């Protein structure tokens, strides 16, 4: 055993890595719990990678999409479980990504020198949402068909270029099997190719700068701050969280596997109570609400503008909340965060209650 270790160590300098990891510490304070959510997101992403590859083995994009998902769900041994795990892990992935994002926001971990961590994280979030949107169509059942039609109305409303963009995404004037083929290419090739290097960059930055401490901790004098070693203590705790997450996904995936709706009927009317996946519910509901105040295309445009502005502001927070630990700037950023979180939660809830 030690011979093998020596062999590897001489060539890969494992002991240097161990020494490095041993010196690294993770701050310990009453908000430490929120440090785990990036790791949970990472685990979910890895599960998505594995289950996604497994699904590709039987999935056929294009005209056979629906039938291949049906036989995968009902004929292939444990196919329902792999599909269910992919679907549930996607949900838990986005939940943990949102928790991660808001905890980073409220701990003000986007401040110098971590701005690029914040921006790469925002880009990863947007890619994650695109993963969700493109993946949702792939089974090509009635609901996913309608949801995609509705969802594509958003790029449709971008002034001047919107129509062209929506048509290019659809591969036609209507959602069809050509759209499924395209969405599959996005979902399984383009997005992972964009996501993986960005994720590496994001993780590299976390390694480089270490965990940020919240402003409340900054008031504590240096010698009173507590920390735990990254290796093995933090890693072990991280692994424990992974185990909890894995168990949770296994539990919900086996108890509540997703159904497959009726096959898409391009001429059929939209079924009642159409609503998007929960992570688009807020924007869906907000557009609906604004539409009530400002009817017609103008309302739609106003909604999209507000969303885009909000997102831009959200991304630019490192600029208007500079590194001064206290003071007015910092407070405004916090208020803005609470406001955004509130709007997201309330509109999502409204969407479900009203829907």
């Amino acid at each position, binding site marked *: 055993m030690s011979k093998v270790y020596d062999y590897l160590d001489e060539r890969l300098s494992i002991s240097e890595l161990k020494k490095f990891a*041993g*010196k690294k*510490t993770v701050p*310990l304070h009453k908000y430490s719990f929120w440090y785990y959510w990036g790791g949970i997101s990472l685990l979910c992403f890895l599960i998505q990678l594995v289950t996604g590859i*497994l699904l590709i*083995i039987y999935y056929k994009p294009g005209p056979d999409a629906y039938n291949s998902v049906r036989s995968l769900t009902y*004929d*292939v*041994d*444990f*196919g329902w*479980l*792999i599909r269910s795990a992919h679907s549930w892990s996607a949900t838990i992935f986005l939940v943990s990504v949102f928790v991660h994002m808001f905890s980073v926001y409220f701990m003000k971990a986007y401040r110098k020198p971590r701005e690029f961590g914040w921006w790469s994280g925002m880009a990863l979030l947007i890619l994650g949402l695109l993963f969700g949107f493109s993946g949702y169509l792939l089974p090509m059942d009635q609901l996913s068909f309608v949801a995609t039609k509705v969802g594509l109305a958003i790029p449709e409303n971008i002034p001047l270029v919107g129509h062209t963009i929506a048509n290019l995404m659809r591969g036609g004037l209507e959602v069809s099997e050509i759209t499924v083929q395209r969405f599959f290419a996005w979902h399984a090739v383009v997005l992972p190719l964009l996501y993986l290097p960005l994720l590496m960059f994001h993780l590299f930055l976390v390694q480089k700068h270490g965990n940020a401490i919240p402003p409340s901790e900054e008031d504590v004098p240096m010698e009173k701050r*507590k*920390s*735990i*070693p990254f290796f093995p*203590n933090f890693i072990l705790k991280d692994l424990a969280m992974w185990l909890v997450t*894995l168990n949770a996904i*296994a539990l919900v995936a086996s108890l509540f596997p997703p159904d497959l709706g009726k096959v898409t009927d391009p001429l059929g009317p939209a079924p009642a109570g159409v609503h998007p996946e929960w992570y688009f519910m807020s924007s869906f509901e907000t557009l609906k609400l604004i539409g009530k105040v400002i009817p017609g295309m103008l309302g739609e445009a106003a909604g999209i503008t507000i969303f885009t502005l909000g997102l831009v502001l959200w991304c630019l927070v490192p600029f208007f909340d500079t590194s001064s630990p206290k003071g007015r700037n910092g407070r405004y950023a916090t208020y803005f965060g609470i406001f955004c979180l509130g709007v997201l939660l309330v509109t999502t809830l409204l969407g479900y209650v009203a829907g």
Partner: protein
Amino acid sequence: MASVGDESCQTYSGASERMSEEIMAVSPEDPGENEISRLNFIKVAVGGMCLAYAAAVGYPIYRYLNSPVQREAALSAVKDVTLAGADKLEKGAVLLFKFGPYPSMLIHHKDDSWVAFDAVCTHLGCTVQYHPEQDKIVCACHGGVYDSHTGANVSGPPPKPLTRFQIKVANGAVTVTRA
């Protein structure tokens, strides 16, 4: 154990220092029997848990990947196949058909005898073909030759004769049966 404790005192700070002090308190100099058996127990328990998780994740994945294999295996268990209209096959002609998942051939010889073989070459599994002019079964992959009446391997690399099936020619169909 003591040396590990020392090391962590130097490199670790804060909380872990207290932790290693606790360990030292339990085992001041060298670890007692109890300490070692407890460590072994933890090792075995953690290892066992890892194995259990690997199995719980691996088993569904294996079954998932193996699903089509299993279905074909079920298919290949069929004992006979009825070829409708095959009794009209001309003399000197061949009919290729699937017996379960495997390609097979039915030959109606010029002397009015009927034979059916497994068309999978016994060498490396290429599908063989019937050459009526030479009245031989030939494998194009490495030049294996079989007797078209008995299926015996005549020349080339094939190590074994082709598997021969039983045949019942009736009015309107030929039934091929595996022994």
